[in-house]
């Protein structure tokens, strides 16, 4: 479902984020990428999401060679298939909860009814119906986290990527997140998590652990 073939990513100044990576992920797998910062985990996510292009090699997602796609196709593909949960939530502080959640779909020109339906569903799932119109900056950490996850789901993505999702959370919220993760897993989506949080290191519902070091895969555990 997701394939990286001979992927190398080099940044300006001769810095190699990834070297000759070959990776194949199956549909429905929940994969955790382990490694310290700078090991290349985030870069892999970014490549899978089509947010950057490799210096060498190909990235194929769901049959599409996204490393070759022009930006507008890439973005549309991302919009239709991928949901991203960021490290710092990355919500737009001055917009409301509803607006933030619907943000990915604004350019898609879906009928209003459909948007409202999806929004309602997610608000209920994450128990934040009452906060619909509140500005995001007025919410607590846990609530913001849920908004971020709701946003990642609004487009019914096949793939969910999470980059250090618990980095800014305390243990209680981190465990809550892991619960939500269990839920997501049961919906047969492909989920990839990049993290160095030890809470993830021995979960039974994780299909695969991949360890990265200096841009190379050093371990691949199922």
């Amino acid at each position: 479902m997701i394939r990286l073939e001979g992927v190398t990513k080099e940044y300006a100044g001769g810095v190699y984020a990834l070297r000759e990576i070959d990776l194949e992920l199956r549909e429905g797998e929940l994969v955790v990428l382990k490694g310290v910062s700078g090991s290349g985990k985030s870069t892999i996510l970014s490549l899978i999401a089509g947010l950057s292009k490799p210096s060498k090699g190909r990235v194929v997602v769901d049959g599409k060679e996204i490393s070759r796609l022009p930006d507008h196709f890439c973005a549309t593909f991302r919009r239709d298939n991928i949901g991203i949960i960021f490290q710092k939530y990355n919500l737009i502080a001055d917009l409301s909860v509803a607006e933030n959640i619907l943000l990915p779909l604004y350019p898609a020109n879906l009928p209003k009814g459909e948007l409202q339906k999806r929004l309602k569903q997610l608000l209920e799932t994450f128990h934040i119906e009452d906060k619909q119109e509140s500005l995001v900056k007025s919410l607590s950490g846990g609530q913001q986290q849920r908004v971020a996850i709701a946003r990642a789901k609004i487009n019914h993505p096949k793939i969910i990527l999470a980059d250090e999702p618990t980095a800014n959370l305390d243990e209680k919220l981190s465990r809550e997140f892991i619960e939500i993760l269990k839920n997501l897993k049961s919906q047969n989506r492909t989920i990839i998590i990049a993290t160095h949080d030890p809470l993830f290191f021995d979960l039974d519902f994780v299909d695969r652990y991949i360890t990265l070091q200096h841009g190379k895969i050093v371990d691949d555990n199922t």
Partner: protein
Amino acid sequence: MMLLIWLVMTLFFLSSSISYELTTKTEHMPDIILTQTKAGREGFVDEKIVDHILEIEGVSRAYAYIKAPYQFKEDISFTIFGVDPFEEIDDPFIAHLLERYNLESGSMLVSHDVKELMKKAYYTKEFNFIRPDGSLKRVQIAKEFDTKNAPHYRWLIVMSKEDARDILGLAGSEATNIAIDVANKLETPLIAAKLKEYYPNAKVVTKKEQKLLYEQSFNFYSGTFLILFSITLLTFFIIIYDRLSGMSSEERREIGILKAIGWRIEDVLGAKFYEAFFIAVFSYIAGVSIAYLYVFYLKAPLLGNIFLHDAFLQTQQFSLAPHIEFFYLFLVFLLVVPLYFAAVIIPAWRVATLDADEVMR
């Protein structure tokens, strides 16, 4: 941005209102006006030539009148209009006045504003004019008239020719202008040419020429102003561009988020231009409205004086009646809005094409 539009729009309201006034003024002008020059300067014309002019084929009417400024204070002059109440006058306003009120020798008709000013100087029933040689001439104020519908006659005084001559120092049969009407308007240039032949020293101006002159000098004047404004515009352009080029890290982050969640470059650009569009339209409407109020309600203090400070117009106060010309609204729009958009293009593009992978870190 608003400031800019306001400035330019004020300019245009002023100019369009004034040119409109000028047009209405010239509507009722006689077809040809003849004045004399002596040594290259405006001189006086002898009334007697009217008989000769009437002999020219095609001339339907000719009469002499006196129209001259009388200095009241440093910044205000009245316009003295000397007529023969038994002669037909082209100008409907004055003609109407003469019909309604009896004009006798030694009395005059004054406009409301003139009456007020005279009252302030303690003259209520009569006024003492000062002749060029310093002596005084007393003239009775017969009636006052309203100039609401004829703003260009705000400082008008109508009196008999003899009285006017007396006050202005003209000799027995001298006048300032001879008005000539032509039966067949198409022949006007021909007759004007004939007049020029007979009176080589005279200045013969047809109605059309006069109109053109007003409009041209006017346009040129505002044209120079516009050059100045083009420069201002350009400066604004650079300032806007500069300001927009600097992207806050906050904005960078937000755009990164949008792209990460699936917005295409076109979507980001679209949003930016949508924003620019609103700013532009809003500033345009606001700027135009403020200019409208400024010019037509506040009567354009400061700027108005700079603009009107030119003697060629021969009238000092314009009443600035509200007059909007759609063309100028269009023009200002075209002058300012494309520039604003142009200034936005490159900064917007730069923002929209940021690499979003940074946001993953």
